């Protein structure tokens, strides 16, 4: 091709690149886009290895103790806790296992603690259903996996948050979670929701969801829905794990607890008294 046409194409290409790149540069230098990145991304203690007694993080770190002894003698309580969560968060009910969405649910000991499977179990472990939910780990592998930071650790309270607006539905977090705590909206969930809670959105198809430790209720000074459903029984104790004077720390000091798959190194925040 002759020189002038080639020169024209080169300039046109460069101009097109500049035209495409300019809005990106403008966006990168604008403040609002970046402000949330800095705060949302900080995952504390991500580089630490080994669990030997080191404090995981400073600041508030919310956690939960599930006292199975209480659930064992009050079988309806766990169902009520699950129902409360499902109601508050517009969780759809799918009849088939394929599509099910569960934030908190029940499963036998052998499934909740497959890494601690023993041959001769106690009566409770043999027969009673255990509460299963997202562990809101201190070193979550789901957050490590997410390519868009749609799931992230909130540094203020240690909750592993989920931003449904940003999730691209790649489901890498579902593969990464060692606890099977995450669900995906394989289709539009709305037809499968019985009653709407007008104070909380539903989700749309194509995004991952999981327990969010009721961040929206905590902001109003309420307890998580599941904890509130067990109010007064002591079945679920919720509080700041980093506050030595909190109720939950008192329980943890007194009782022996186990956690799910501690060897995974994710440092879960949910403890179980069996």
């Amino acid at each position, binding site marked *: 091709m002759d020189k002038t046409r080639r020169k024209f194409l080169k300039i046109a290409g460069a101009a097109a690149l500049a035209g495409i790149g300019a809005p990106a540069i403008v*966006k990168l230098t604008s403040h609002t886009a970046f402000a949330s*990145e800095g705060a949302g*991304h900080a*995952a504390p203690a*991500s580089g630490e290895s080994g669990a030997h007694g080191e404090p995981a993080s400073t600041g508030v770190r919310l956690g939960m103790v599930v006292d199975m002894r209480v659930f064992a003698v009050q079988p309806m309580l766990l169902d009520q806790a699950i129902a409360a969560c499902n109601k508050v968060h517009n969780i759809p009910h799918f009849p088939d*296992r*394929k*599509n*099910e*969405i*569960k934030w908190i649910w029940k*499963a036998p000991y*052998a*499934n*909740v603690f*497959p*890494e601690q*499977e023993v041959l001769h179990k106690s009566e409770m472990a043999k027969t009673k259903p255990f509460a*299963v939910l997202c562990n809101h780990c201190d070193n979550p*592998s789901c957050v*490590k*996996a*997410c*390519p*868009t*930071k*749609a799931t992230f650790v909130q540094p203020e309270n240690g909750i592993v948050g989920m931003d449904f607006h*940003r*999730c*691209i*539905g*790649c*489901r*890498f977090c*579902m*593969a*990464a*979670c*060692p*606890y*099977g705590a995450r*669900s*995906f*909206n*394989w*289709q*539009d969930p709305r037809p499968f929701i019985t009653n709407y809670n007008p104070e909380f959105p539903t989700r749309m*198809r*194509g*995004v*991952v969801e999981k327990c969010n430790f009721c961040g929206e209720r905590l902001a109003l000074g309420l307890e998580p829905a599941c904890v509130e459903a067990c109010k007064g029984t002591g079945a679920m104790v919720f509080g700041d794990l980093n506050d030595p004077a909190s109720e939950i720390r008192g329980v943890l000091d007194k009782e022996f607890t186990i956690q799910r*798959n501690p060897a*995974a*190194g*994710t440092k879960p925040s949910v403890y179980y008294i069996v």
Partner: protein
Amino acid sequence: MIEKVLKGKSTYWMWLAVLGTFIAIGAACYVRQYMFGLGLTGMSRDVSWGLYISQFTFLVGVAAGGLMLVLPYYVHDYKAFGRITILGEFLAISALIMCLMFIMADLGQPLRGLNVIFFPTPHSMLFWDMCVLWGYLILNCLCGWVILTAERKQVHPPKWIYIFVYISIPFAVSIHTVTAMLYCGLPGRHFWLSAIIAPRFLASAFAAGPSLIVLACLVMRKFANFDAGKEAIQKLTTIIMYAAIINTFFFLLEFFVGYYSEMPGHTHSLEYLFFGLEHDGHVYNNLVPFMWTATAFSFTGLGILAYMKIAKVFDYRLVGTAAALIFFSLWADKGLGFVFGGFVPNPLNEVTEYIPTANELGITLGIWATGFFILTLLYKIAVGVEHEIEA
């Protein structure tokens, strides 16, 4: 050079028409999936990655396989590969486009796909996967095109292109290593949590890619009047043989680790894949026939290649059979066994089996057809240039 795709024999057009039909069906299936959601696939809460991601994983390997042509020719001056390195580069392009299509088909919110670029997340391996995949695609497009153009004009390629050729060599290794890192860094899945995943991926990639190139060369020898040369094909079969042997060795090591240690976490997935997993009175074994067929194919293919080497026999039909058997066995090993095995049993030791739906298969076949379509067009250009300079 693109004008070369516009002229061809009737076989060429019929082949494109067949592929076009599959592409159209795939597109229609995708529209259905886009409107309804991924619920139209067989994926579930437990098996959250299915055919799409498994095909992506396999095809990244096929793309990396082009390295086995580039390395001997550009670094070790193995002249016999001179006419076919372009085939490796073009295969990488079409395989990578298939990979990207499979990822897009798999996303729950494909329109938000750019979030990975808007919110770069260096601690996520998917981010790096996107980077290296695009990087390798651009490298192959650049190198393939510039060198082919230079060949057509009967001049030496410009010196600066060799920088990119040499960069593409570690890139080829990196794309499949990063894809392996998607899996081998997840603490919750014992089947994947092994250091040998990346080496195994590379070994099977270096067998699968060249296998497909050998098959393409045989097809083109018959239909497109393009002969890669007996020496090149023979060398490729040697490479395929050694890579497949290494992959088999690694796989047998996995078996050893699982079955000798008898640790449930390391055996359950292998048991599901090869023998069927018994859970709550039900035996889950829908992948068992695939895995044993793949094993049989792999050993048969290796046997044929070994026989050809030892008996110093060279027969194109044997070469084609061996390449096809090995390609299929590696596809089943990585595409089916590896990805699906990681989800069975799930982290709660429950089993949900995965069976793809017809819609899902339609999309999968449509994307494979698109890849072969692009491959055909690119190879038509390459072969066309060959014919031009030979004339």
